[in-house]
Structure formats: C-alpha cells, structure tokens
C-alpha cells in the first residue's frame, strides 16, 4: 500500500511542478489583461507572455565587451533558484515528495539566492543603471528579509512546524478561523509580496523610466535567451508568492497528494485562488501609484511592525484563549 | 617629681619654644639665632641626660652638638647670609599666622599620638618623645612654609635637633646612633654649602623660585 501512496505522491509532485511552470506566464498574461480591462483598454491576449518568451529564445544573445565571462552564469542561477522555490511551495495539493525540503528558512534562502544573482547581473557590465537598480533592490531586500522572518515566526507559532507544507496541513486541519494576528500577518505578507515581485507600490513593472525602475534596470544589458531566463524567473517569482499566500491564508480544500481522488477538487480550487489573487492584485495596482524609493523602507517598516504585532497578539490570544 | 625629670622637661620645653618661634621669623639672621639657641639647649640636655643615665657617650654627643651645631654651623650660615647680602625679609609660601596655627595643630597631633601609645614606658621617655616628635614636625612645617633655600635648610636642621633630642632620651641607646647623627649633620652642611655656592653661580639669589621655573617647563 505505502508504495502506491509514494507513487501517487511522486506523480503529484511532477504534476505540481509541471503545472506551476506552465501556469507562470499565464498568470502574468492574466494580470496584464485584467489591468488593461480595468483601465478601459482591450489589452494583449493571455498567451502574450508565451509568445514573448518564444521570440526571445530565437533572438541572438548580445554580450557587452566590458562584461566578465560570468555574464551568462547569473540568469541560470536565478532561474534555477526560482524553479526550486516553485517546486517546494505546494500549489494545488500538500504532501509533495519535496515536502521535508520546503523549510521556511530554505525558501527565504532560495529567494535571497535568486535576488543575489539578479544583483550581480546588474553590476556585471559596469554602467550606471545596473548599479542604481541593484542598490535600490538591496535596500528593499534589507527590510523584506527582516519582515519575512518575523512573519515566519508567527506562522511557525500557529502551526508548530517549520515547513510550508506542514503549515498548510495544520491550517487546513484545524479551523483557525479569522484571528487578529492572522489579519496583521496577511497585511504584512501582502506588502512583502508586492515589494518582492516588483509590483506597483515598490516598482512599476510596466514602466521603462530609467530613473524609477528597480528590477528591470538590472536586466538592461541582457538579450535573447538569457533575458528569457530572467523574464521567466520573474514570472515564477509572482506565482510562487501567490502560491505561498494561497497555501497559508486560503488553505481550505487543498488536495492531498496521497489520495488521487481529491486532486481535481484541489486543481479547481488552486485555479480559483490564482484568479482571485490576480483580480485583487490588479484592483490594488490600478488604485495606487508607485511610491518614491525612500518611502518604500517606511512601507516595509510598517509591515515589520505588523508582523511583530501579530506574534505578540498571538501570545495574548493564546493566554486569553486559555 | 625628681630633679632629673624637671630639668630635662625644662630643656625640652625651651627647645620646643625655639622651634615654634622659628615659624614666625621672617629674617634669616633671627632664624639663625633661634637655631643656635636650640642647639645650645640640645647640648645642655644631652649633658644632663648623660649625667642622669651616667652613660658617657651622651657626654660625647653633647660635646659634638655644642661644637658643630651650636658654633660652627651658625658661623657658616652667617657667612652665607653676608656673602649674598640677604638682610631683607625672606618670602614665605604661606601666611605666618596660618603656619603658627598649623604648628599648634602639629603639636596637638604629636601629643595625641605619643601619649596613649607609650602608657607603659617611663614618664620621662613619654614626655621626651612627645617633645621631640613635635620638634621634628615643626621643623618639617618650617621647610614647607618657606621659599628660601637657606630657610628650608634651617628647618631641616631643626628637625635634626628634634631627632638628637629623641636619641638622648632613649635609655641605653647604643653609641652607634650618636655617631651617625653627627655624621649626617657634617655631610649635610658640606653638601648644602656646595649647593648654595653653585646656586649663587647660576641664579643671582638664594630664592627657590628660580628652580621652580625650571620645573614648570616640565620635561
């Protein structure tokens, strides 16, 4: 019997990875279409990002002469880190084969590795925009890391385990319901996710103004296949954060890898969750403007305080709850 | 109260009076005169103790004190005063009134310290010890209260007198101590003399302020 369960979990994991990799460009496309519709424009088709990636793959790769011979290495490292992170974060079902690996600190480490690769890519060619973008991204990452760890403490305290998979299991099983600390944690998590994926308040994904851009500045010198890798990594980053928020804050109805019967329900729920979050993201992006670079640290500082408050309220709740 | 005690007590008192009045003097000549009286009284006390304890080395000490400290030394000091023309008053480092008060305080300290300690020994030595300690402390105060080199030397010699008085008061103190005290006075005078001549060559006055400027340069 246990062999069958293992086989189911392996197939489940492969299915999960394939689905996440396939769905990443689709989510970006969905967000683009929804954004355009909200702004009253027709907007590009959902499959537009797939076309963009295929076009980039066919184009030549231009290497600047001032770049060192590590130039092509960074895209591979960044993409590999994001793929691994995607594999670890459960999507439509929990209990994946990679579950024991999906430790929250390892996840934070992988995101940091991807960020480091992008920063070094920015500094690679040695011209102004790459360095400026890298400096800003580093400033954001300092506050993101601090807030993220405090949030992980809250999730760890609620679920008494350190793996994302375990948190999902614990939150799905027990009916935690709406609690003050989870509310604060959600607000903080959203702020961090927006900054990490380079959405509106921290960085304008659609804008190309050299002075304002953060993530795109670091990829200016890349072209062809290497740029495709970086773009794909950015798409993966968005779907990983969506999966993370989905598993922690909307855990109900997630399938279990062992019993195959629950997969269809899980898949449907997962697609629904992605859609809901994409709509929420577009609504938020349309309603606010990009912040000045040095206002973002305060924005993330608020997120960190919310994280601390959530862990403190958790303590108070546990005490009062008896 | 036996005659021995009364007379030594009297001589000790005279020496204490001279040491105390040294503090009030401003002119070198008067200081030298007071010192001479003190030395004469000391030699008398030494002779008297020699007679009282019939120890012949005290007679020798009395003779040495009389010859060197009472006669030769004041002559040498007066020669120095004449050669450098130091007739006018000597500058003092602290007001004379204050030094007098301190002098009384010192005598009080000496008495406070010596009397309870020596309750077991003979009253004569207790008395003698208290007086000699007072003279030593007064001589010391004299050295710190005057800026003139010669005045400091006189204070130093007054302290020596206190010591010799204490030595004569000790019953059966071996002779060795006497010789060394004399040796000290002789050499002290020799060295001081040599110094004073040299001070004169380098500064026009005996005053120590010249020396103090050197120290203030700081090395």
């Amino acid at each position: 019997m246990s062999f069958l369960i293992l086989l189911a979990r392996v197939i489940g994991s492969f299915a999960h990875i394939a689905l996440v990799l396939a769905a990443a460009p689709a989510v970006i496309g969905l967000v683009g279409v929804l954004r355009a519709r909200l702004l009253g424009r027709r907007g590009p088709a959902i499959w537009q990002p797939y076309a963009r990636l295929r076009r980039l793959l066919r184009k030549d790769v231009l290497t600047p002469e001032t770049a060192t011979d590590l130039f092509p290495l960074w895209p591979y490292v960044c993409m590999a880190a994001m793929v691994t992170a995607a594999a670890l974060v459960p999507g439509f079902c929990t209990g994946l084969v990679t579950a024991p690996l999906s430790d929250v600190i390892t996840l934070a480490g992988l995101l940091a590795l991807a960020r480091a690769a992008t920063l070094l890519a920015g500094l690679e060619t040695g011209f102004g925009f790459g360095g400026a973008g890298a400096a800003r991204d580093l400033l954001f990452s300092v506050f993101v890391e601090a807030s993220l760890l405090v949030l992980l403490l809250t999730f760890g305290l609620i679920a008494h385990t350190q793996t994302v998979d375990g948190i999902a299991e614990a939150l799905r099983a027990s009916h935690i319901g709406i609690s003050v600390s989870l509310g604060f944690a959600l607000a903080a998590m959203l702020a961090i996710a927006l900054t990490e994926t380079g959405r509106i308040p921290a960085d304008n994904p659609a804008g190309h103004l050299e002075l304002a851009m953060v993530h795109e500045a670091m990829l200016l010198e890349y072209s062809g296949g290497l740029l495709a890798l970086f773009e794909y990594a950015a798409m993966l980053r968005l779907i990983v954060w969506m999966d993370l928020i989905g598993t922690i804050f909307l855990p109900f109805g997630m399938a279990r890898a062992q019993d195959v019967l629950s997969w269809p329900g899980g898949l449907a729920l997962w697609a629904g969750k992605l859609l809901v979050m994409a709509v929420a993201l577009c609504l938020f992006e349309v309603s606010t403007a990009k912040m000045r670079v040095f206002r973002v640290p305060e924005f993330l500082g608020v997120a960190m305080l919310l994280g601390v408050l959530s862990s403190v309220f958790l303590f108070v709740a546990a005490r009062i709850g008896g | 109260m036996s005659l021995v005690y009364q007379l030594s007590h009297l001589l000790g008192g005279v020496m204490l009076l001279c040491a105390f009045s040294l503090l009030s003097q401003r002119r070198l000549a008067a200081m030298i005169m007071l010192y001479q009286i003190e030395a004469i009284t000391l030699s008398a006390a030494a002779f008297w103790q020699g007679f009282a304890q019939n120890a012949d080395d005290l007679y020798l000490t009395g003779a040495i004190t009389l010859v060197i400290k009472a006669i030769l030394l004041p002559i040498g000091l007066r020669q120095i005063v004449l050669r450098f023309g130091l007739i006018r008053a000597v500058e003092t480092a602290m007001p004379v009134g204050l030094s007098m008060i301190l002098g009384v305080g010192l005598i009080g300290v000496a008495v406070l310290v010596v009397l309870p300690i020596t309750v077991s020994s003979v009253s004569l030595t207790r008395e003698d010890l208290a007086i000699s300690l007072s003279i030593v402390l007064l001589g010391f105060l004299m050295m710190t209260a005057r800026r003139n080199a010669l005045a400091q030397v006189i204070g130093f010699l007054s302290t020596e007198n206190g010591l010799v008085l204490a030595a004569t008061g000790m019953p059966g103190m071996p002779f060795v101590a006497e010789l060394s005290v004399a040796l000290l006075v002789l050499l002290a005078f020799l060295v001081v003399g040599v110094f004073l001549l040299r001070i004169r060559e380098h500064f026009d006055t005996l005053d120590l302020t010249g020396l103090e400027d050197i120290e203030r340069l700081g090395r």
Partner: protein
Amino acid sequence: MIGLPGQGLHWRVDALSALFLVILIPQVVAGALAGMRGSVAYWVFVAGMVLALAAGDAFTLIFGFELMSAASWLLVVQGDRRPATLYGGVAIFSGACLIPALFLQAGGLAFGLILLGAGAKAGLAPLHSWLPRAHPAPAAGVSAVMSGGMVKVALYVIIRYGFVVFGPAVQPWWGTALIAAGVAPVLIGALRAMLEVELKTMLACSTVEHVGLIAVGLGLALRAKALGDVGLAALGLQAALLCVVAHALFKPLLFIGVGAVKAATGTSSLNWLGGLMRGMPRLGGLMLAGAAGMAALPLGPGFAPEFLLLHAVLASAGGGGILARIGFTALLAALGLSAALALGAGVRLIGIGFLGRPRSLHAAAAEDIGGGTLAGMVLLAGLCVPVALLPGFVLARLAPVIILAVPGTVPPALAYAPLALALLMAVAGGAAWLVLRNAGTRREVAAWQGGFGPAPAWLPFGDPATQPSATGFAEPVWRAIGLGILGPGQVDPGEALVLAPLARINTRAARVAERIRRATVRQRLAFVFGALVAALMLLGLVQGR
C-alpha cells in the same frame, strides 16, 4: 620545571579543545603559505593559540591567551602603528579581566568577568569597535588567522567556562547577557560591512557580525540549558559551533584573497578596484566561494549555521513570557536585517570589486595569483565544500562536543539538505541550458554607454565615473539605516559610547597627574608632610579607641 614557578604547565585536550585545534590547522597552513612562513612572531602567535586551547589549568590558558595577544600585537605594530596601542590595550584588558575570573568561585560575577574579558578579545558588545581598526593592520596571512583563529580562541574560553567549568551553576540571565552582547555586534558589524570602502576593514566588520551570531547561538543554548530545555540548547550550540567552523574557513579565504588583491593592484579600497575577474579569474572564483559564505547564500558554507540559528531563535521564541516573546521577535528582526546586509556586503565585494569595469590602471593590469597564496586559498575553498554541501556530516562530528557542553542531550537532525536542493537546481539549469543551446548565435558588441559621451583616449576601459562606486552602491542603505545607527560621521556606536569617553577620562586624569609631577620642591615636601600627618592622625584615632 617549565611554566609558573612551583606549578608548571598542564595540558589537557578534550572534545571541545580538539574541535578548535582542528579548525585552526587549515587557516594556519594557508596563512603560512600566504607569505608568513618566515616570521617568528607568526609562529609564536600560533603557538600561543595552541597553548591556550590545549591548556589544562588556569595559568596555561592565560599564558597562551596573552602570548597569542602579545605576538599578534607585535605583528599589528609591524603592519600599522596607529591601532597597535588600542589593540594592545584591549588585549591587556581582557587578560586583566580573565585572571581574577578564573580564581573566583563559579557564579555570576566570574561569568560576567569572563564575558567582559573574552568578549572584549572576541569583539562582543561593549568593546567591539577596536576590531575593525586593528585586524586590517597586519599582513593578510596574519589578519586571516586573527579573524579566523584568535577570535575563536576567545569564544572557546567563553564556551569552556560558560558550559563546562561553570556548568552546574549556570543561570538563565547568563544566556540573555550573552545574547545581548552578541546582537549589537551582529547589527553594527553587518551594517558597517555594507558601508566600509576599505576591503580589509569590511571583512573585519563581517568578523564582528559572525562573532555576534556565534554569541547569540551560545546565548540561546546557555539560556535553554539553564531553563532545562536540553534539545533547544543542543540546537543553539549546533548553530554556534557550525558557524565557528564555517567562519574559520571562508573568512581566512577572503582575507588572503584581499591580501592578494592588495599585492596585485597596490590598493584594497573598493573605489579603486573593479573588473578584477577578467585579469584574475582564479582569484575571482575563489573569492566568489568565500563571498557566498559571507553572504550566507544557500549551497554556500555560511547558510547552514544561519539556518540552525534562525530555527533556534524560532524555537526559543515559542516559550517564555511576553517579554521573552517581544525580545526574541526583535532579535529575529535584527538577524533578518543583518542577514540581508551581509548579503549586500557579499554582493558589493564581488559586484563592485570583481565584476564591471576597472576603475584604475592597476586594477586593469592585475595578474592572477599563483604559488603559495593560490595553494592556501584552494585548500580553504576545498574544505568549504564539505561544510557547504554535507552539513549533516559535519554536525555528526560536532556531536561529542555538544554532548560534553550540554550533558544528556541528543543533537537534533538537520532539516536542510543542500544536496537535494543542488540536484533540483542542476536539473532546472540543465533543462534551461538544453533549451538555450540551439537558440540564436552569441555576439560580442559594445554596451550602451548609458547616455554618456565616449571616454577619453587615456581611459581605454571607459570613464570610471560612469560606473557605480562602492560608496554609491551602499548610499541608499546608508541614508535609510546607516545615518540612524552610526550618525553623520559614520562613527561606530561602540567608539562613541565606550572608547571616546574612556579616552576623555584618561586625558583629564593625565592632566591632573601632570600638575602633580610639575610640583615644586616645596609642594612635594607638602605632599609628604600632609601624608605623614594624615597617617599620624589616623593612627591616633585608631589607637585612641
């Protein structure tokens, strides 16, 4: 007999001192290979460390400890005289604190003195600001062994006395004190590592940060041991000891690398380097491995200790009262902040120093390293690989030390499997490579100048001003955080709050002593006379009663 008259020297090597002796060997060999073979002071320095670690009794420990300090002081003097006196002062201060502590009976005061003494030498909270000024002064090989080995000997003394000798008498506040003494250097060290321009000073600040991390790990373990939670104590100790091992490998690697950079380009200031990867590929590769350790990136040697430490903090935040919860949450935020700053420092070291365009002719014309330096760095990098990829194996080797320090515990298993992660990343990377292999051709073109005019003829590699400088790269972090903590003059709070006031007191007292020395003959007589009369009056009062 050799040693203290009447007692002599005693040796004793148990699991704890064996561990620290083993981690000493690679960096000493690397330091010797990096050009310190001939220096007598260097070998006396190493002998002092070995003596301190293998000491059986108090005298031998202090003798080795101070011999190590004295020899390293001489090496610092040979390097640069300005910080030498401060370094010597701290060394003597730590000896002056340790000697009394070893003769007091086990208790709070003794541990406090040891924390102060050994902490000053290691660079913990009150006295940490001297380390970034003194460690860069001597030659690279010596700085490597100072940061990698000497700091560890000081921490060894804290472990030896905190856990083993004073073991039964441990109290929870000892752990809290050690955590407090550790968290400030972590934050300040990481921030200054991000802002310093001089490479060696940056690495010294990173040492201060890593010593802080180790101290936090030890503090957690000590507090857990005092509260009876043996499992958490083992976790904290695992974090601290693994950090000791990892830091003892990648920090000397970086220091020797920086020494090689200074030898090749004549400067170690980041604002004059750049594009070294092109001229010095071998050095660049090794420095990349070292920087991965410093930045605590996954698959690097530095990540496993950080992983264990954060888990220890997460676990200990669970228990305890409201104050403990707030305290540990704040500690977690600080650790997160400094982890990101450390990442920034690593990226800045490699990005500004080795990538991009050369900022000076020397940087452009640098030749690669060879001979002893290369051999030493390859040795250290080679040893970094097992620590990076097989932390489980290394932790198994540390188990006897942990059982010695926290009796009756079973070291927990490690939840971080770098090999599996590496496999996943390799598969993903391989797939991407296959897809890209037959994609378009690859051509080398001139990059866009970023809107600036063409560089003048005498700057073949382009105008350095159009390239982000080290200070510029750190400027956003400086404006957001640095200004608050370090103040406008970028002065380390340890300097402003501890060393500067002490210097002022010393000057004022020296002025008083100078007045006493310049007293005239009469005044000196007055001193003597006053003391005599005071003694007599005291005697009179005492005897009179």
